[in-house]
């Protein structure tokens, strides 16, 4: 063990205290929202541990009627579970398609030779810098027109949102391309000599080695689409078709802020992301390419 300088302990403790404070800073809003969701009534402010804990907001969020102490029955105002399901459907579908298109696209950019390759890569990067919000009007009128010919791609259809989300895949192409380029080209050359077509070399050699980056992209794309608000809020209109991110906004009317119900819905929206993350985590491992080549 290396000889440590004498004030090491104090430095370690300073670092620890800094990290704990930083963690509190990050955790506080999250704890607040949980606290609000368990507080009776719709109050945004109050102590972190609710004075009068109640499950009313969670009952309503899960679509169950709530009977309070006075015997007054509140019917759930919004189909929160349906919104959650919509969110999951849209996010899952668009993430799967993003993954499919960005891996194959990244393979082309990383390994194949074609004209204007560099220009296309730069163009993708630059276009990605404009926020999608700026294109809301265009997106709206595009899908409005599209709906005349392909009904399930029209306004107020989840299909439209799914397709609109695919626009974000340029960033993922860059990410996966970077990973592909770390894998030695001779592996695929060996596969070609073994008689593989480019598709087989991709499918049997490159793809199994790229699982960690695919898991990362899957998580990133999923988070991005579940939490997306502007595009979904423009494309979706009827109550039953909203995603959770857009739907939760319904609780916050100018005259009537239902903070408690909103908080319960917000916590729920974090659920699918957590599940996907826990599921994908085991694919994020290092050392998959170990032993294949010696550089």
């Amino acid at each position, binding site marked *: 063990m290396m000889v440590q300088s004498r004030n090491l302990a104090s430095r370690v403790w300073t670092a620890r205290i800094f990290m704990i404070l930083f963690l509190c800073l990050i955790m506080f809003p999250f704890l607040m929202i949980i606290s609000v969701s368990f507080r009776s009534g719709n109050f945004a402010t109050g102590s972190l541990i609710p004075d009068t804990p109640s499950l009313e907001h969670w009952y309503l969020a899960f679509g169950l009627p709530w009977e309070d102490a006075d015997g007054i029955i509140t019917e759930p105002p919004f189909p929160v579970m349906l919104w959650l399901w919509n969110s999951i459907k849209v996010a899952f579908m668009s993430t799967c398609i993003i993954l499919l298109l960005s891996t194959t696209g990244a393979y082309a950019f990383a390994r194949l030779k074609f004209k204007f390759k560099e220009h296309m890569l730069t163009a993708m990067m630059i276009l990605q810098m404009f926020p999608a919000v700026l294109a809301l009007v265009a997106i709206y009128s595009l899908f409005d027109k599209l709906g005349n010919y392909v009904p399930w791609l029209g306004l107020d259809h989840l299909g439209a949102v799914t397709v609109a989300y695919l626009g974000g895949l340029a960033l993922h192409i860059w990410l996966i391309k970077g990973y592909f380029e770390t894998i*030695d080209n*001779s*592996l695929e*050359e*060996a*596969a*070609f*000599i*073994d*008689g*593989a077509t480019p598709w*087989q070399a991709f499918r*049997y*050699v490159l793809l*199994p*080695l790229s699982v960690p980056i695919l898991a990362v992209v899957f998580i990133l794309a999923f988070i991005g689409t579940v939490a997306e608000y502007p595009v979904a809020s423009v494309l979706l209109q009827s109550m039953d078709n909203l995603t959770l991110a857009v739907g939760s906004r319904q609780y916050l009317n100018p005259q009537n802020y239902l903070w408690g119900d909103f908080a319960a819905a917000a916590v729920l929206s974090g659920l699918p992301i957590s599940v996907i993350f826990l599921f994908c985590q085991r694919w994020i491992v290092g*050392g*998959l*390419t*170990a*032993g*294949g*080549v*010696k*550089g």
Partner: protein
Amino acid sequence: MAEVKLINVSKSYDQGATWVLKNIDLNIADGEFAAFIGPSGCGKSTLLRMICGLEEISSGELFIGEETVNDWPPNERGVGMVFQSYALYPHMTVAENMGFGLRLAKADKATIHNRVQEAAGILQLEPLLERKPKAMSGGQRQRVAIGRSIVQQPRVFLFDEPLSNLDVALRVQMRQELSRLHRKLKTTSIYVTHDQVEAMTLADQIVVLSPLQEGSNSNLEQVGKPLELYHRPANLFVAGFIGSPKMNFFDGTIETSGEEVSSVKLGSGETIQVHVNTASASKGDPVVLGVRPQDALTEVNDGNSVTGKVAALERLGAEAYIYMQHDCIREHFTVRVEDCQRKEEGSTINIGFPAELCHLFNAQGLAFERTRVPKFD
């Protein structure tokens, strides 16, 4: 099993802007073991990749067997390649690695199993078949890479510096194993290396390539059997490249030319007799005299010698290298001697050049024919 024939094969990048290889003519007979050797940047790996089909051939024709295969993809050419970096599929076991090609070709399971077992038997890989590449040593990995080619039963084996990632002891062992394998399988093999020991010991035929010079017509320097290259180098490049330590070169002029014996006057005044045919040259023509470090003799007092100062001495036990200074030497003047007696730095000694062991090159670097070459087979 097939012969490999190259006719005027050239390689350029950027539509002829840069040339790597020019006018390579080669004939590698069926069952022969050929080695491509040359310093880095001479295009030897590129040439191998062109034969394999991983690089396009810019011009010229490549035959494997009877057919022109210029436009054939690698797998149709019937070649097996062993990469310097092994290039094993890291997510597959040894058996899966070796059977991958057959699996793609949709061979039935029994065939795959038999062929893998057979190859594993040849390479003593049976106990490792279920391991992944990362759980194996460098030598084992390279054996698996060789096994993967054997399973495909190629017509030609291609080796791209397969031993350069291994340590010295393993390299010697693998070298012998490759030699044994070639005797057993008798498949045409092409081996790229920058290590002349590997080329000399393994190959039936050595192909020496040099980095392409501006304006030169080809960078194929010489093709021949190992000892032929050693004893009859066609030019200065081959003479300097084959043999270790490097041959010593002295600048001089022809004093007397002749068909059997000639004499050369060095710039420093010494006259050296050499057994080469210089009938084509005349007195005063500039030439380069070449003597291998192991052919030079110390402690001679007869005429055929030069006088130089000792610059440094390396004593290795069985042999010693004396590094000398001399006015007419190009690069280094090295003499290998078997006695390891101490010699004072700066002292002057006589180095004798046996006339029948000297090489002579003209101003263009081409060798004059030697007239008394020692016997070799």
